């Protein structure tokens, strides 16, 4: 426990340092990529607990993110301006911001129970298509609410609160807040994986019947996995809302859900470091290919190359970059000459 608190404090300092460094030295454009990567990591590491550890197949992560984004946006707007109106963007207060993220996470977690419970009856592709259905229904219901702006969504979501010494920079404190959440979810997930709960989840993945026989309450654990992933997806949505300042229901189509699954499988399903790497790759590769597209003036070229890379990657390494292993110092020691097996 003391170690976890210590690590969290260290993470807090590191994220502050990162934000300060970027504000001093780096152009805001690159910071945009970094923040989108951070949000993707939160989504992927959360989904990894559902799909990777527990072996369920959720294809509806965007739905949780959508709920989180709208709840956080509305809470923040209400508490900052008192009503939806036009005008310049303002900063959210620290309390408002944290409360909005917490409520975003909780709302998504409730949806996680709603989706996770019926999911107990379904397996594999059937579960996947049902969760995708839930996410689409969520998105369509959000689109149908005229009070939430209909298809244009909500706008003028306040900025993330400032910290001492990070005032005059367009990037604000986004890097700090987003990567603080990234650090937290990676730490929690790594701890979870090695805890009795994590072992129980893995046992369910490997053989549900055997796990039940050994006293694992499979039904409860499977719903818990959904709640965990949904909670963090909700927070990721909240961060996204505060970062982009406006959210539309169409930001959360099934394409985004599919993208998160691609991140996991690409990195190696069941591996946290794999999920992180997959999130980085899926977010960054199309962006890195963008200059090529502009050079040749062919619209869509970067996505074509990205799709080709994805196909080739799967054909030549179907288990993903890391498989189920983690990237760790131990792995390096094993690979280096003279290392222990």
């Amino acid at each position, binding site marked *: 426990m003391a170690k976890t608190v210590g690590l969290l404090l260290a993470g807090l300092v590191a994220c502050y340092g990162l934000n300060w460094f970027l504000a001093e030295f780096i152009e805001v454009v690159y910071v945009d990529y970094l923040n989108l990567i951070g949000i993707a990591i939160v989504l992927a590491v959360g989904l990894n607990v559902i799909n990777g550890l527990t072996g369920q197949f959720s294809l509806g992560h965007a739905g949780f993110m959508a709920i989180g984004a709208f709840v956080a946006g509305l809470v923040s707007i209400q508490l900052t301006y008192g009503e939806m109106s036009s005008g310049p963007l303002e900063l959210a207060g620290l309390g408002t911001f944290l409360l909005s993220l917490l409520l975003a996470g909780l709302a998504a977690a409730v949806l996680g129970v709603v989706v996770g419970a019926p999911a107990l009856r379904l397996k594999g592709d*059937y579960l996947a*298509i049902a969760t995708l259905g839930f996410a689409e229904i969520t998105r*369509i219901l959000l689109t149908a609410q005229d009070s939430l702006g209909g298809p244009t969504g909500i706008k003028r979501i306040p900025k993330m609160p400032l910290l001492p010494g990070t005032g005059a920079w367009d990037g604000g404190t986004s890097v700090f807040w987003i990567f603080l959440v990234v650090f937290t979810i990676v730490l929690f997930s790594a701890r979870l994986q090695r805890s009795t709960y994590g072992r129980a989840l893995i046992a369910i993945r490997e053989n549900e019947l055997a796990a039940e026989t050994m006293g694992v309450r499979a039904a409860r654990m499977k719903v818990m996995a959904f709640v965990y992933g949904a909670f963090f997806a909700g927070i990721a949505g909240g961060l996204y809302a505060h970062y982009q300042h406006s959210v539309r229901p169409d930001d959360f189509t099934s394409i985004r859900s599919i993208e998160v699954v691609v991140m996991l499988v690409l990195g190696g399903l069941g591996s946290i470091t794999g999920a992180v790497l997959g999130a980085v790759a899926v977010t960054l590769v199309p962006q890195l290919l963008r200059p090529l597209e502009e050079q040749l003036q062919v619209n869509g*070229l970067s996505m074509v190359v990205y*799709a*080709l890379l994805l196909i080739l990657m799967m*054909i030549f390494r179907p288990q993903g970059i890391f498989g189920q292993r983690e990237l760790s110092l131990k792995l390096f020691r094993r690979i280096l000459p003279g290392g222990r097996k």
Partner: protein
Amino acid sequence: MVPVASVDFTSQLLQYFANGVAKGSTYALMAVGYTLVYGVLQLINFAHAEVYMLGSHFAYYQAKWGGYLPDEPGAKPESVPILLVGAFIAIAMLACAAVGMLIERVAYRPLRNAGRLAPLITAIGVSLFLQYGGQVVFGTEPKLFPTFVETEVFEIGSVKIPNTNLLIVVTTFVLMLGLTLFVSKTRPGAAMRACSHDMRTAKLMGINVNATISLTFAIGSALAAVAGVLVAMDQPAITPLMGVRIGLKAFVAAVVGGIGSIPGAALGGLVLGVSESVVGGLWDTNYAEAVAFVFLIVVLLLKPSGLLGKATREKV
């Protein structure tokens, strides 16, 4: 689709029903492709929606190069003899069948023994590749697609049925009937059923599994091409991303009807098409979009094998 004048409730309902049958027929044509492939490989072939998109584009370019498109936008297009429309569709079917077989050969066959997830991801990859490849080759601008035939509206009582809708329904019915006969009465059809039942044993019995799977993709893709051309004739324009929405709906239709079952795909498609049209007409088009998914979840929870599917131990 036909707008509904202010008439009494029953005839409104009938009109939406008729519109929905046409819409549902296109879902059914697409759903068959998903259901056949899933039945044999247990793979959600995401790229199927893009084959549909290619089908409409193939027909578009035939018409364009044949000189059957209006020279300037807004001009009245020349009407095309119905036999020639048939030829456009037939050529699009052949081309799409080839594309479907190629996709299977290149992207799925190398992964046949690599578990279920890897081929799913390559399917997504192929889908993205064709969507954006389509943008590169065809351009991102929507293309005006001619109706080809002179539009006529038949009236049965108060219900108006345009001849394009009639064409969709009749074509779908004939093709589904043909497919059912093919699968149940011919030797390649029996091979398809055997592969879907138990691929290993089918192989031991001397069935050429690879050829059968190729045939499955060819048939599904050809039907998607028909759907692509028919829908394009009924709608104003086509784009490289046109497959995304109908693809998802058609897959849902296949699951609702019972995946692996051809009559199930037809029923699922019709149920979704009609309920979408009725809900959209009587209530709200936004909610109509959600109908398919509500159906999906209800059916999965009550009868996971689908309306006409057989319950198997793996699925529940």
